[in-house]
């Protein structure tokens, strides 16, 4: 994977996004060229409202969501709004950018991919970035490559 560079402004925006939705998980996409991020897309976490989300988690056998309340679902999981993803990918095409980072927040746990994250990691070319709000005053951001259940930490540079 190419060295990852993320503008400080976008790092700040992601933390703000995570804090705004806490205790619910936020999610979004970053796009750029050759590992250098230049564009941020906040995506709505529709895990609580979208029936497809429960089916996807069940089919991947990673997390039982069906018995949780809407609020509980959004505290422990995220599912990106498919329509917003489609719009983000269209914008990337028009700007000739590549999907570079897939991010979400963990509001109660460390910035390490969960079994759910690993089981549902369908984009091996993207970096998966997790914003942990476990310690509210000190958000922890870490990026990983997840390829075929193999998790590798990726350092990123704030630019």
């Amino acid at each position, binding site marked *: 994977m190419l060295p990852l560079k993320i503008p400080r402004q976008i790092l700040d925006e992601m933390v703000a996004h995570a804090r705004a939705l806490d205790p619910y*998980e936020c*999610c979004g*996409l970053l796009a750029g060229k050759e590992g250098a991020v230049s564009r941020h897309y906040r*995506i709505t976490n529709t*895990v609580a409202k979208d029936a*497809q*989300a429960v*089916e*996807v*988690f*069940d*089919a*991947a056998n*990673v*997390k039982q969501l069906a018995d949780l309340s809407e609020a509980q679902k959004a*505290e*422990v*999981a*995220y*599912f*990106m709004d*498919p*329509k917003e*993803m*489609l719009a983000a*990918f269209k914008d990337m*095409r028009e700007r000739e950018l*590549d*999907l570079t980072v*897939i991010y*979400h927040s*963990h*509001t*109660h*746990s460390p910035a390490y*991919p*969960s079994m*759910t*994250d690993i089981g*549902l*990691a*369908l*984009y*091996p*070319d*993207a970096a*998966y970035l997790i914003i942990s709000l476990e310690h509210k005053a000190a958000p922890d951001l870490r990026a990983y490559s997840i390829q075929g259940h193999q998790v590798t930490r990726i350092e990123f540079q704030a630019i």
Partner: protein
Amino acid sequence: MIKVRIPTPLRPLTKGQGEVEAKGANIEEMVDHLEGAHPGIKGRLCDEKGELRRFVNIYVNEEDIRFLKGKDTTLKDGDEVSIVPAIAGGN
């Protein structure tokens, strides 16, 4: 011809191409046609019973086929189909 947008995880099957052309009167036929040109792609889109996998979103001209007729959604010349695998996870 139908223009099909291929997501990055499936591009190893299309020689890196982000857009390919396909034929078919509906989504099911289009998937079979894609499989002929890019072997292995059907198994990524459909389960062993031939049903579309739950985490695969398919759009025809930006309309989600789940809200149309699923794999029976009809296609016509010039349609644009986007394949977008779900992005999900949790703590």
